[in-house]
């Protein structure tokens, strides 16, 4: 999990397989960014090979906390197998999903 800074956004790039074994570390990392006062988060899912419902749950939890703090969470996700997980749970309509980090950190609404 590599995090970086882009135009005022904290960008966290996830990789590998996210399931009940690995989701807790992802949750910790994202909550740590929130605890540091980061309010604009981009989570890049393009190197994620597998995402299960626990991983989705972590993202839902982060979205809730970000909104409570008045911040914003954006996802980068283009891989069909990962996009599909959002679609069949209809969570694609809850998240702001972008094609690239560039697109995500640009101002305005999701393309």
């Amino acid at each position, binding site marked *: 999990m590599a995090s970086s800074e882009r135009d005022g956004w904290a960008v966290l790039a996830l990789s590998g*397989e996210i*399931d*009940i*074994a690995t989701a807790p570390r992802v949750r910790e990392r994202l909550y740590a960014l929130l605890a540091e006062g980061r309010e604009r988060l981009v989570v890049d899912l393009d190197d994620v090979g*597998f995402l*299960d*419902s*626990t991983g*989705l*749950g*972590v993202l*839902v*939890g982060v*979205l*809730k906390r970000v*909104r409570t703090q008045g911040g914003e969470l954006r996802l980068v996700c283009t891989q*069909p*197998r990962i996009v*599909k*997980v959002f679609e*069949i*749970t*209809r*969570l694609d*309509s*809850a998240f702001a999903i972008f094609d690239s980090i560039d697109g995500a950190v640009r101002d305005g609404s999701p393309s």
Partner: protein
Amino acid sequence: MGDRIELDFPARPDYLALVRTVVTMIAAAGSKLPDTRIDDLRLAVTEACANAIDAERRLTTGHHGSVVLRCWVEPEQVVIEVHDGAGGFDPDHLVPHPPPQRPDRLQFERGLGIPLMRELSDGVEFRAEGGGTTVRLLLTSDPRR
């Protein structure tokens, strides 16, 4: 008739990667399921095994349970059963999630596993077996959807 493969493994999250590898290899070698359908299989099986592991670990007996994966692989379909001995539950009385448009949807960080299994599979059955649960997943090469 197809091949039968069985895997018994400790009820621990770190075994999910092994389960996915086994399921992917046997489905790729023994069935005509396309890759995207094998992705669906991998996710449905992960959800079923994660529930079995969760349930085993909620037991306060201190007993470290195991989970059994039973696979039947045929050219046109794969059937996977996931069995645990963790007491069972009633799959017909789960509270559904609010639709994603409603703000209170975000209160629900869990409860997506069984809906996902139902969406991904051509058939899901739960049955009580041996003091626990057996989930049966059917995935065909030519899904109904």
